[in-house]
């Protein structure tokens, strides 16, 4: 027993030290990459992209399942996006509410005979509609496929552009976000296969007619903690991994993909729990196996605003699902690990995801237990125990503040002093009990996956404010 505790504590100590070194390296890399990106932006004029006849067409794919609350506002906002050649395809994924009726009413949808070739698997199509008011809007009405992946696949089959941008129906894209993200693609269109933008927390901000009018920090503590998490995940994690072309995930809420790539890998896996992570890992696999010289990129300035759970129950479900999705992708792709054929993806990022993402809640839970036990049994000096806790707290806080610093140095979306002060304050308090709660939810996700419980549980939403008019 004593020997077990000693080994366990040493393992924990090494694990924690390693993870901290990795996070610090990621923070430094992210700061450097961000500076380089801003240097490139200095000579870019979005106006030139907007007016250029060489800017390729893009199809926005918007899966919608029971989104009656704000589908009209959401589509209104997507149609207002600044892009020269845009097609918006909303996929009504077997909604049992009035999603389709709302769209029909607001946009004057009429049945249209558009070519639909089932190139990737998806559930049966009931009909395709085109808007009389907005010719760029197409609605694909289909049977519920049981997953977002199935809905996106239907959209892929109907899309006509060489690039598709997948957007959540409950998210808001900034008007210039598509131009900005496509600027990343057009830097090297032969090599850039996919690009992800940043996803930020919408809660608390002022939205009028599906358009973000004023960015504000949410009021609730739970939501502010998620703001910090999102900043850390996107401005540090994704920014840094993409520097080495090892981006493991492009958020399902906002990402652009080459359509031919997605079709080549068979579209989204219909039963995938974390379809976004799964798609990117399979894309890496395919591109490595076919010896393609490719880039999967993250760009921090194209912004998508999304609503995050405001109550504990919804948040718990979301986090459990994310962790299930993680395992659901890592397990089928376990053969990629440490195989030279898969390059850095197989030798660095997937092992990292296993060790520091999947195992993290398990090791953390075991660690809490063994450290406390060792302290109680007198095996661990109380002074050392407290120091170790304090170190963990201080280091994690430093990384969180680093993400706020990146936000400050670059995009400064929270312009009010008081909001920044609140963000910094929450960086100091996020480690107890929020961190422990997240750990429990992630453990629940693992347990649900092992039990074969892959159900999608609804999230409670507040929705966007209504639109005064749906025509431009």
């Amino acid at each position, binding site marked *: 027993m004593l020997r077990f505790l000693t080994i366990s504590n040493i393992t924990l100590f090494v694990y924690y030290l390693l993870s901290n070194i990795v996070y610090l390296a990621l923070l430094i890399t992210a700061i450097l990459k961000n500076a380089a990106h801003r*240097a490139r932006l200095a000579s870019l004029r979005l106006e*030139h992209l907007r007016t250029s*006849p060489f*800017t390729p067409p893009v199809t926005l794919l918007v899966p919608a399942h029971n989104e009656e609350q704000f589908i009209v506002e959401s589509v209104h906002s997507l149609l207002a996006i600044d892009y020269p050649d845009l097609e918006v395809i909303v996929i009504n994924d077997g909604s049992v509410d009035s999603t389709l009726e709302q769209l029909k009413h607001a946009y004057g949808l009429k049945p249209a005979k558009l070519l639909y070739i089932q190139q990737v698997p998806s559930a049966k199509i009931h009909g395709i509609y085109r808007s009389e008011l907005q010719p760029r809007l197409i609605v694909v009405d289909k049977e519920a496929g049981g997953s977002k992946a199935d809905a996106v696949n239907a959209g892929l089959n109907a899309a006509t552009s060489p690039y598709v941008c997948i957007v959540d129906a409950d998210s808001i894209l900034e008007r210039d976000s598509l131009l900005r993200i496509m600027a990343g693609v057009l*830097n090297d269109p032969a090599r850039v296969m996919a690009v992800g933008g940043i996803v930020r927390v919408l809660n608390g901000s002022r939205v009028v007619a599906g358009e973000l009018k004023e960015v504000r920090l949410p009021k609730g503590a739970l939501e502010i903690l998620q703001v910090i998490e999102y900043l850390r995940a996107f401005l540090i994690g994704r920014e840094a991994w993409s520097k080495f072309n090892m981006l493991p995930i492009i958020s399902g809420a906002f990402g652009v993909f080459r359509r031919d790539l997605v079709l080549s890998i068979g579209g989204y896996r219909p039963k995938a729990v974390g379809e976004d992570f799964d798609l990117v890992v399979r894309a890496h696999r395919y591109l490595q196996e076919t010896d393609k010289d490719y880039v999967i990129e993250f760009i921090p300035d194209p912004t998508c605003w999304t609503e995050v759970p405001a109550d504990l129950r919804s948040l718990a479900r979301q986090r459990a699902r994310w962790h299930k999705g993680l395992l659901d992708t890592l397990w089928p792709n376990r053969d990629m690990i440490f195989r030279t054929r898969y390059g850095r993806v197989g030798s660095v990022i997937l092992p990292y995801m296993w060790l520091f993402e999947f195992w993290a809640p398990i090791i953390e839970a075991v660690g809490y237990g063994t450290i406390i036990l060792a302290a109680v049994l007198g095996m661990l000096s109380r002074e050392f125990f407290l120091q170790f806790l304090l*170190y963990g707290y201080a280091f994690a806080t430093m990384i969180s503040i680093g993400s*706020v610093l990146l936000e*400050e140095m670059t995009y400064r979306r929270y312009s009010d002093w008081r909001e*920044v002060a609140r963000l910094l304050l929450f960086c100091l308090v996020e480690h107890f009990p929020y961190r422990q709660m997240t750990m429990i939810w992630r453990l629940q996700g693992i347990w649900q996956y092992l039990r074969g419980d892959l159900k999608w549980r609804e999230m409670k939403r507040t929705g966007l404010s209504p639109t005064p008019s749906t025509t431009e």
Partner: protein
Amino acid sequence: MGFVSSWTREPAGLVLEAILGSLAGIALLIGFIVLRRWYRGRYFQKRNERAFILRGMWDDILTGRVPAAKWRFKPLDCEVVESILLDTIEIATPEELPKLLACLRVSGLLDMRIFEARARRGTSQRMALVALGRTRAPEAIPALAEALEADAAETRIAAVRGLGRTGLLDAAIPMLDLLVSNTLRAPEHAIKNALLNCCRPDPHLLVRYIPQSSGPARELLARVLGELATPDLGDELLVLATDRLPEVRASAARALGNAQPAFALSVLSVLAADPEWFVRLRAVVGLSNFAHPETVRPLLLALCDPNRHVRQRAAWALARREPELESIFDQVVGTRDRYALEAFVSELERSGGFEKVVQAIQDRSPAESAASILLKGLAVSRERAMSVAASGSR
């Protein structure tokens, strides 16, 4: 030495150092955020005040009544004046431009930027290149051209964008020289946009370079020409339409459709039967720009194309030939091609011409006949056709 001693130290000592390090990190980060906010707030306030004052004497600055020496060596004033000048130049008419450029020259701002573009590296060099592009001054071209061969990719991109932004024909020459020798290393999209801006006044410049180019460079030049072509480029476009590279032929089709020289219809009709589907597609798009009756036949052939994109586009073009819809419909039915008919009817529905065609057929023949014609072909719109036929027979 320090490294060795850290490893021989007790874990508690290490942890203590780590705590202190992390706390120092937190303090530094927070301090930096606060100081930066404070500094920026103060800077923008000062800049705003100076901009207000300098705007008040703007005409005097432009005419030189306020000598450049008064503001040129005060960094903040210099920055504000340059920023106002460049913003004004971007929207200046040809009549206003000389006065603004004269101010840039006399004040030495232009020379300063040229010097920075040549002597500096990194961010300062790129900022200088961006500024030079915005000046639209011919003197800026050599400095921008030199940066095309810089080691840093960002610098090369800034140079290409800068040259493009000048909008001067001479600015295209260094890019074209490097392009035809396959040594211009910059994103294709940036090069195309830059050439488009620079060659707009005289697309013949591109024509001169196309024979010297090969492979991707040739395709790129043809693509730009496709956007800029004018009717007087007739013979050159004819040569491009017979090029061995399909991308070049596609661009020629685009150019012919845009420029519409006298022989465009016949050449586009030939290109509409090209072995490459995207050449045929571009030819069909080109043909759709003409309202001439001669285009109906090649479009009908394209409607029976094995490629769905070509069929769709031909259907799109035919469905918008408003006065001839009825006769076109008969000809489409005459092709006995189900896919062609399906594509055409879909487009008719989309363009709102469907009801008109049905009405026209009903008017000229018994309703049963109209229904039988429609029912034969409109597998896609069976229900609708039935209801129309039924209402016609009532």
